[in-house]
């Protein structure tokens, strides 16, 4: 029975629940907007990393370096698009 629920994945699930509750606390507690956004960014990034390592078994793949390179590039593109857009269109450049 316990083999069906490996410890690593159960712990990963609990961690993801805790991160979600921390993100939710921003809504339920009265926290300044800027600090709230920082908390959201940190919890979202940790949550993403958790999924990649614990659940998607990224580190177990034999083409690990190719995966990290591809993922790194994809994140670079996404971050450039998002912050480039915000910088030019919203933050008054």
């Amino acid at each position, binding site marked *: 029975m316990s083999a*069906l629920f*490996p410890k690593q*994945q159960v712990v990963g*699930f609990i961690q993801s629940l805790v991160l979600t509750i921390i993100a939710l606390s921003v809504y339920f507690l009265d926290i300044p907007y800027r600090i709230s956004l920082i908390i959201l960014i940190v919890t979202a990034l940790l*949550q993403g990393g958790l999924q990649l390592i614990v659940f998607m078994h990224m580190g*177990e793949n034999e083409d690990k370096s190719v995966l990290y390179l591809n*993922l790194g590039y*994809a994140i670079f593109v996404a971050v450039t698009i*998002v912050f480039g857009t915000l910088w030019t269109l919203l933050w008054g450049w």
Partner: protein
Amino acid sequence: MKSKPLYSLGEESSNRILGFWLFLGAEIALFGTLFAVYLTLANNTGSAPTQKELFEMNGVMIETFALLTSSFTIGLVVNAIKLNHKKAFMSFLIITLALGAIFLGVEITEFFTYVHEGATLQSSGALSSLFVLLGTHGAHVTFGMFWGIAILIQTYREGITETTANKTFIYSLYWHFLDVVWIFIFSFVYVKGLIG
């Protein structure tokens, strides 16, 4: 040396997994552009309802916990492959799909409520970009439901083989990825919209 898991035994299986990771890279760029559009237009609400007026935390919380739990159970499906435990495989996959259905049910209800409150795709820039972002994610989940059902049927017929194990592992990558995208939607669309 650790023996290779069933889902990535042959060279073709490994290549399929690698190819799917490359596809996910493109998906990250896709959702990146949709987030950029939404974050740019989020305050352009015009005379339409604002996000703060529209969003309901209860529904969003159900969606989030349904998807998070399904991400855990699809992980248990992959673990069942390693144990060669077909019954557990089928059970966890059915739970995963049921949670996916709950997610979609809540999201569709939510969309109906928005439209009922006068918030449609045409109402404002903020709502157009909101619906496109949520809709693209929801369409992915819908596609994932059909994909999951197909895998369920094939595994039911053929058992846990190298082929079905490989397909299931790739499907699990897709499902986890949708969970990650949802976490970003949850944080930067819903929570941000409700506190902003």
